[in-house]
C-alpha cells in the first residue's frame, strides 16, 4: 500500500498547489482592487509582479527563457496597474474577487481547450506528428484541409459524414420523441390519486439512478444473442406459440444486425425516467381548479389534455426537451459502450461517437478537432434556434 499512499500524497500536494494558486490570485486582485490608491502602488506593483511572474515561469521554461519574457510581463502589469488605478478604481471589487477563481478555472479548462481545439483543426496532428508536437510544440499548418476532409472523407472506415449526419438527426429525434411520449404517459398515470405512488415513482426512476456505465453494459449483456433475457424471452414465445413463430418472432442478432436499434432501445429505457420526473413536477403544479372548471363546462378527457395539461406543462417541458436534445445529440456513452470495443460495428455511430472513435481509435487528432468544430457550430445553431423559439433564457434573475 505504500504506493497508494504515495499517489495520495501527490493528490494532496496538488490540492494544496491549487489552493496556493487561488490565494496568489486573490492577493493579486486585492492589491489591485483595494490598494490602488496608495502612493507606492505603481512602483511596487511594477517591480514586484513582473519579477514574481519571471520566477514562477523559471522552473517550467528555464531561467533564460523566463528572463526574456520580462518586458512582456512588465508591459502587461503596467496596463493592469494603470487600468486598476485610473479606470476601475476598486469598484465591484468583492464580486470580482469572488468570481475570479471559478472563472480562471473555466478559462483554463473549458475555454482554453476549446481554443486549442480550434487551433488543432487548422493544423495537422496525427499519430506520426504527435511525438514531434509533444517534444517541440510545433505543428505543420494545414489550412482548411481538415475541414475539407470532414465533408469529403469518412471519419471511420465505412460511414460518410452525410450518413452520420442523417443518422444523428434520426437518432436524436426518435429518442427525444420517445422520451417525451413515454415520460408523458407515465407521468399522467402517476398523477392520479393512486396508492403506492411514491413507491412506483422510486421504481420508475431506477434506470436514471443507476450509474450509466453499469446500466448500459448490463443492457448490452441482455441484448446478447444467446445469454440475454430478451432473446431468451423471444425464443420462449416462439416455442410456446407457433403462430407467433410464423409471424417472425424469435431470437434476433441484436448487436451485430441491428446495433442502432439496440442503442435506441437502451437509450429510450435510460431516458424516460428523467422526462417523467420533469413532466410529473409540471403536472403537480397545475391547480385543480382548471380541471374543475373544465368539468363544469363538460370537457372531455382529451379536451382537458389538449387545452389545459399540455399548455401548462409546456414551460417545464421545453427546457427539459432542449436539454434532452443536446444530451441525446451528444450521447457518446451509450453508443460507445455498446459498440466501442475492438471489432465493434460502425453502423450505430452518430457524429459525436464518430469523433471520439476517429480521435482515439484511429488517432486522427486534427481531423477529429475539425470535425468537432463543425459539430459544435451545428449544435450552437440548434441551441440558438431552441432558445429563440421557446425563449427559455428571457427571465434573468
Amino acid at each position: 500500500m505504500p504506493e497508494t499512499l504515495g499517489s495520495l500524497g501527490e493528490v494532496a500536494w496538488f490540492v494544496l498547489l491549487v489552493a496556493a494558486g487561488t490565494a496568489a490570485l486573490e492577493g493579486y486582485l486585492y492589491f489591485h482592487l483595494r490598494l490602488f490608491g496608495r502612493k507606492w502602488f505603481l512602483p511596487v506593483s511594477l517591480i514586484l509582479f513582473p519579477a514574481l511572474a519571471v520566477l514562477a515561469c523559471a522552473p517550467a521554461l528555464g531561467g533564460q527563457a523566463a528572463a526574456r519574457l520580462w518586458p512582456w510581463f512588465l508591459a502587461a502589469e503596467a496596463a493592469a496597474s494603470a487600468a486598476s488605478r485610473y479606470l476601475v478604481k476598486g469598484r465591484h471589487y468583492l464580486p470580482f474577487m469572488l468570481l475570479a477563481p471559478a472563472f480562471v478555472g473555466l478559462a483554463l479548462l473549458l475555454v482554453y481547450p476549446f481554443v486549442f481545439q480550434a487551433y488543432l483543426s487548422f493544423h495537422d496532428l496525427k499519430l506520426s506528428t504527435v511525438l514531434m508536437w509533444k517534444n517541440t510544440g510545433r505543428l505543420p499548418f494545414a489550412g482548411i484541409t481538415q475541414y475539407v476532409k470532414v465533408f469529403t472523407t469518412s471519419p471511420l472506415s465505412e460511414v460518410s459524414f452525410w450518413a452520420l449526419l442523417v443518422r444523428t438527426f434520426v437518432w436524436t429525434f426518435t429518442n427525444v420523441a420517445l422520451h417525451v411520449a413515454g415520460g408523458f404517459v407515465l407521468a399522467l398515470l402517476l398523477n392520479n390519486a393512486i396508492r403506492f405512488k411514491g413507491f412506483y415513482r422510486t421504481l420508475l426512476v431506477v434506470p436514471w439512478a443507476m450509474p450509466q456505465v453499469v446500466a448500459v453494459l448490463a443492457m448490452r449483456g441482455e441484448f446478447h444473442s444467446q445469454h440475454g433475457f430478451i432473446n431468451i424471452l423471444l425464443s420462449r414465445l416462439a416455442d410456446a406459440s407457433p403462430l407467433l413463430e410464423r409471424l417472425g418472432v424469435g431470437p434476433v442478432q441484436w448487436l451485430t444486425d441491428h446495433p442502432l436499434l439496440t442503442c435506441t432501445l437502451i437509450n429510450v429505457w435510460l431516458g424516460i425516467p428523467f422526462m417523467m420526473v420533469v413532466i410529473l413536477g409540471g403536472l403537480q403544479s397545475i391547480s385543480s381548479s382548471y380541471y374543475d372548471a373544465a368539468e363544469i363546462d363538460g370537457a372531455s378527457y382529451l379536451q382537458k389534455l389538449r387545452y389545459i395539461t399540455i399548455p401548462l406543462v409546456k414551460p417545464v417541458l421545453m427546457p427539459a426537451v432542449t436539454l434532452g436534445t443536446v444530451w441525446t445529440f451528444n450521447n457518446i456513452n451509450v453508443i460507445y459502450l455498446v459498440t466501442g470495443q475492438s471489432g465493434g460495428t460502425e453502423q450505430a455511430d452518430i457524429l459525436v461517437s464518430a469523433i471520439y472513435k476517429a480521435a482515439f481509435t484511429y488517432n486522427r487528432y486534427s481531423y477529429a478537432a475539425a470535425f468537432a468544430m463543425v459539430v459544435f457550430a451545428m449544435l450552437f445553431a440548434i441551441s440558438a434556434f431552441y432558445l429563440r423559439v421557446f425563449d427559455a433564457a428571457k427571465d434573468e434573475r
Partner: protein
Amino acid sequence: MHDGKRARGMKGTARNLLIHLAVIAAAFVCVYPLLRMFSVSLRPGDKLFSADLSLIPAGASFRAYSDLLRDTMFLRWLWNSLVITTATSFMGVSLASTAAYAFSRFRFPGRRSGMLLLLASQMIPAGMLILPLFLMIMKMGLMNTYLGMIIAYSVSSLPFSIWILKGYYDTIPRSLEEAALVDGTSRVGAFWRVVLPLSTPALSIAFLFNFTAAWNEYLVARVVLFSAKQYTWTLGLFELQGQYITQWGMFAAGSMLVTLPVLAVFLYSSKWLISGLTLGGIKG
C-alpha cells in the same frame, strides 16, 4: 344520485386497477435488468449462461463476489475512483460556492454575460473537449495519473454547481447578512459565517452532483488511464464485461456492488437534484 355515485365508484375502481397494472408493468421493465443482474451475480460458475429466468438461481452462491474481490483489482479500482472523485468534487464545490454568491448578491458589470457564459458552457458538450484535454494532459506528462483525471474533471460540473448554489442563495433572506454586518462582521465574514452554514443542503447537493458526475464518468478515463492498476471502476467493469463474456458473473457482482450505494444516494437526494435541474433549466 346515489346510483350515479356508485356507478362512478365502480368505474373509478376499474380505472384505478388499470392504472396500477400499467404502472406495475412499466416499473417491471425499469427494474428488471437490475434484478436480472442480481440473479446473474448469484449464479454458480457452471450455470452462468443458462437460459434460466428465475430471480434466485438454483445453487445460488456469492462465489462471484468473492472471486471479484480476490482475483481482480476491483477494490483498487474503487479506491482510484474515490480519490479522483473526492478531490474533484471538493475543488468544484469550493470554486462554485463563492462564484454563486457573487452572482446572487451583487450587481456588477458583466454579471448578465457571465451567467449567460455559464449557460453557454453547458451547451459545449463535454465529449467534444475530451480531445484537447487529452492532449493537454499528455503534454503535461500526466497520462495515467490521478492528477490528469482530476484536472480533466475539475471544472466540468462547475457551471451547473454555480447555478444550483445561486438559486439556493437567492432564497436566503438578505436581512440575515445585514444583521451580521450591523454586528460588525465584514461582507466576507457574513458570507462565511451566515450564508455558507445555512446553505449546507445546497452545498451537499452540489457536492453530490459533482461526485456522481465524476464517479460515473467513462470516456475521459478511457483515454487518460491505460494501466489496469490506475483504472477507475468504470473502466474495470467495461474490461470485465467487454473482453471476456466468461466473466459475466463477476461483472454482475461488481455492478451490484457499485450500483446499490449509488442508487441509495440518488433516491435519497433525487428531490433536490430534480429541483436543481428544473431550476437551472427554467430560470436559464
